Every structure is written in structure tokens, then in C-alpha cells.
């Protein structure tokens, strides 16, 4: 039975990774699960220098999901390389590094820095974080800027580039095509959805940042549609994510057109989710007599 998939030049032994920002830098979960069973480890978003992030409260629970406005707290490239890379580079599975910047040049510079680092699996360009004032989502909701960012990173590195698109667009197809044309090797669909919650007792927003990103099972139907539309628009592979809790959810993304999937919010409440998803995909394939996971990709039947 083949579970391996190819995301550009990146080979994943199975189609399941974790979503950036929901798995730290891998090491935190290493005591709870064997990271080498994953398809890849994807780390929290990193930019050039260290970032403190937003004031608290930074997350809030909502129906079948959560809001977050972490504000991309992180150690920066150097901090990451010093503190987390020694651990990550020893894993037998690849690391996908999620990167961001506030200008096109910054994105490219971060990409260049990681290009120089031996052993990185792929770079994921976060052009869709709704929780920072500059950068983030603006690059993901403007096709031109998106092209520029992707093209600049493309010039800065030979590593596989995964562009992580924003869900907050009228139609995802033009963005998917812009990323493909600018040289992206793959897409990640989707980031969190802009949202808000208010505590009626205090009249304050539940997040200090006022608004934040909605994630978890509540956004799955939105994410499935985006993956389906993006897959129709481009030829490059897609990593699907948004509310995956179990193998059935993951298979739904594969059928919609994703070549791989990422488990996000579910890690917070069930750290074993990604491993359970892998096991579940395997037994689904056994039950259905499917030999290669790639047969599932895009197999939704839309004409009745």
C-alpha cells in the first residue's frame, strides 16, 4: 500500500503533516508522540527577527472551533536555528518551515536564510495571517502582491515553496493561479478565517486584538470548498487543512483535491490526532481496496 505523496520536490512518507502554529517547533510534542511517523513537521511562522506577538487574551473558544490572535510570536530566523533546528534536523521526516515578512524583501530574505540551511524540507509562505497589522493577510488578498512575494521567494531559494492562501477572498482561483505562475511548487489551503467574539458581560472582545482567526471543525466546510476550487484552478499539489479531527475529515480533503493534509487546532485538544489520521487513512484504503493514496486525491464525483 502506498501512502507516500510528493509536494513538489518534497517527498512525504504519508500525506499527513501538522498545521503551522499548532505544533510549536515539534519538540514540545516529542514526548507525546513519535514525530518520525508524520509525513512532515510544519513549524510556527518565522520572520527575520524575534517577535513578541499580541497582548492577551490571545485565544477564545467558540462553537466547534476557536479564535486566535497570537500575533506570530516567535524567535526569528537566528533564534529558531539556534534553539530548534538542532532537534528538527535530526528527525527522519522533513521539516516545513512557515515564513512571513512585512515586505516582499523581508519574505525573500527569510527564504534566502533558510536556503542556506542544510536539510530544510520546504518553505511555506504565510501570506494569510489575519492577526498582524502589517504583512500577513494583505499579501494574500491582493493578487499582484501575492505574485511579487512568491516570485521574490522563488528567486531566493531552490527549496520547495508552498504558498499558504487566505480564505478571505471572493474566489480563490485567481490567487491559486497567481501563486502557481509565480513559481510556487504547491499551495496550502487554508489559513484561519477573520472573525470576532464579544463577552457580553464585560462588553469586551474576547481577544485583546479585537479580531482573530477562526479555526477548527467549524471552518471545515469552507476549507473543503476552497480546496476543491483551488484544485480545479491549478496543477500544483495542495496541502488541505481546516478543522481536521479524524481520518474521515482528512479523506474528505483528499477527495476534494488535496494531495496532503495538515492537522491544526485538533492538536490542542487531541495531540495524537495526526497519528490517528494516518492510521485511519490506512484502514480506509484497506477497506476500500485502494492501493495508492494518490488514487483518492481529487476523486470526488461531482456529476450525478
Amino acid at each position, binding site marked *: 500500500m502506498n501512502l507516500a505523496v510528493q509536494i513538489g520536490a518534497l517527498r512525504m512518507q504519508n500525506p499527513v503533516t501538522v498545521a503551522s*502554529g*499548532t*505544533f*510549536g517547533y515539534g519538540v*514540545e*510534542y516529542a*514526548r*507525546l508522540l513519535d514525530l518520525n511517523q508524520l509525513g512532515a513537521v510544519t513549524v*510556527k511562522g518565522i520572520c527575520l527577527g524575534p517577535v*513578541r*506577538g499580541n*497582548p*492577551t*487574551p*490571545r*485565544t477564545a*473558544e467558540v*462553537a*466547534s*472551533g*476557536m479564535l*486566535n490572535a*497570537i500575533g506570530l*510570536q516567535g524567535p526569528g530566523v537566528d533564534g529558531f536555528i539556534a534553539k530548534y533546528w538542532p532537534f528538527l534536523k535530526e528527525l527522519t521526516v522533513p521539516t516545513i518551515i512557515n515564513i512571513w515578512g512585512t515586505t516582499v524583501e523581508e519574505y525573500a530574505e527569510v527564504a534566502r536564510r533558510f536556503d542556506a540551511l542544510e536539510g530544510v524540507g520546504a518553505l511555506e509562505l504565510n501570506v494569510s495571517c489575519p492577526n498582524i497589522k502589517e504583512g500577513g493577510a494583505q499579501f494574500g488578498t491582493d493578487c499582484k502582491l501575492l505574485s511579487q512575494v512568491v516570485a521574490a521567494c522563488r528567486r531566493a531559494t531552490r527549496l520547495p515553496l508552498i504558498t499558504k492562501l487566505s480564505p478571505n477572498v471572493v474566489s480563490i482561483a485567481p490567487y491559486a493561479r497567481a501563486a502557481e505562475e509565480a513559481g510556487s511548487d504547491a499551495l496550502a489551503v487554508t489559513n484561519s478565517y477573520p472573525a470576532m467574539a464579544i463577552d457580553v458581560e464585560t462588553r469586551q472582545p474576547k481577544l485583546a486584538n479585537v479580531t482573530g482567526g477562526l479555526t*477548527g*471543525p467549524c471552518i471545515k466546510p469552507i476549507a473543503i470548498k476552497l480546496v476543491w476550487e483551488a484544485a480545479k484552478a491549478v496543477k500544483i499539489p495542495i496541502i488541505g487543512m481546516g478543522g481536521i479531527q479524524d481520518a474521515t475529515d482528512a479523506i474528505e480533503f483528499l477527495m476534494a483535491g488535496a494531495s496532503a493534509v495538515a492537522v491544526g*487546532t485538533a*492538536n*490542542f*485538544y*487531541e*495531540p*495524537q490526532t495526526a497519528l490517528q489520521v494516518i492510521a485511519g487513512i490506512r484502514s480506509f484504503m484497506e477497506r476500500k481496496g485502494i492501493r495508492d493514496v494518490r488514487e483518492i486525491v481529487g476523486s470526488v464525483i461531482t456529476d450525478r
Partner: protein
Amino acid sequence: MLEELVQILANEREVGAYFRLTLLAPEIARRVQPGQFVHIRILPMRDALLRRPFSVFQAAGDNLSILYKVVGKGTAVLSRMQAGDQLGALGPLGHGFTVPKSSGEKPLLVAGGYGMAAMYLLAQRSPRPGVVFVGGRRRVDILCEQEFRALGWDVCATTEDGSYGHRGLVTEPLVTELRRDAKRKRLFACGPTPMLKAVARIADDFDVPAELSMDEHMCCGVGVCLTCVIPVKSADGWEYQRTCTEGPVFDSKEVLWEVPR
């Protein structure tokens, strides 16, 4: 750190809105240190997904117990669960209290409401008894006084409405005690943030060391999501540290009570 599906052995009302939950959680029970917590997944709460953090109150053999107050959705659902039902437990988590040495400072514990729960293991494992200052709004908020006395500790209770013990704030008898003699004392506090802040100031005034268990909202409980951060002094000014990982127990001298501009 472990993840277990654990069984409820008992889940009974202690007093008022407080419940005592006993779990069969051998692996976690064996490893837990005073001041650590467990992160509980309340399975019947299907549309609310996140785990809830609770201090480990007592641990004996394979069993572990929690003392919790019903304050919202999760604790309400939890209070209706029964012996035999299952919960998800992740733990032991976090950085706990420094267990006193027999030759060391005298431990003075300061607890507000369910903060008392974080203190029991510390008192139990301390080779020398000390004093617990326990405060609450009303009589029902003063928890498990007898269990601390049974460990040979003095308990000094305070209620805001005067319905039990001294009338006033828990920090008042603490100040009285420190005025009497502040030498070779160490404070350990767990309770609402305003109380912790008051304790930090008192520790500063009397120049006694203090360890504070901070109560912040959590999401993952294991350091990956960066929800639970508080501003803490650092080499280059300040940084956000994670209550679930670097804490929940912090040295009172390091905690910044406001985010620097």
C-alpha cells in the same frame, strides 16, 4: 508528560459550587510534582473542544484528585459526570513549586478559593509544616481546612464577609505575620490575579521570596500555541513566557503585571 483516557472514580460536591473529582490515572499520579496541573478533556462537551486546566489537588497510588469550582460551561458539564465515565487527561504539566527543605525557609502558603487545590501536595511533601493563609468571599470558599491541619499545618482563614475566620482579605493576616517576623520565610501563592499581585508586592515590601502560581487561560497546555503567556523580565527587558510551560509557578520578582509599552 502523558496522555491518558482516565476513569472517574468519584465526583462529588464538596461545598457550594466546589466539587472533588477523583480519577484513576496511574501514570500521571505517579509523576506529579506540587503545583503541576492536568489538562482535562471533558468528552461530552462536543461543541466546546478545548481542554480545561486544573491543579492536581491530591495524588495517592494510582489515584489523582482535583478540586474544582463550577464557573462555566465545562465545569458545569464536568459536575454532572459520574463514576465510571471517562475523561481525557494530559499531564503532569508545567513547572511547579519548589518543595521546601527541612533546613530551609518556613513556608507560608497563600490561597484564594480553588487556589487551595494547588497547595495540598506542596504542604504534604514539605518536610516542615508552615502556615496556610486561606481566603475567600464567603465561608463556602474556604476549602479543605481540616486536611491541611491533619498535615500538621496551621490554617488561618479569612472571609471578605466575615462569615468565617478573620474578616477581610487573605493578605491582611499575612502582613501581620510578616510584620511579626519576616526572616527565613518563603511565600507560595495561588489564587485570583489581584491576590497574586498583592502577594508579590508584600513579598517585595518584606523582601521575602515568593512563588506565584498564575491563572491564565490556556489552550494547548504544552507550550505550542502561545495562548497563556505573561510578560516576564528577561535579559533584554522583557519577554512573553508561557504559563503552561515556564509556569504556572513563577518567581514573583520576575512577573511584570502590565505589558511594558
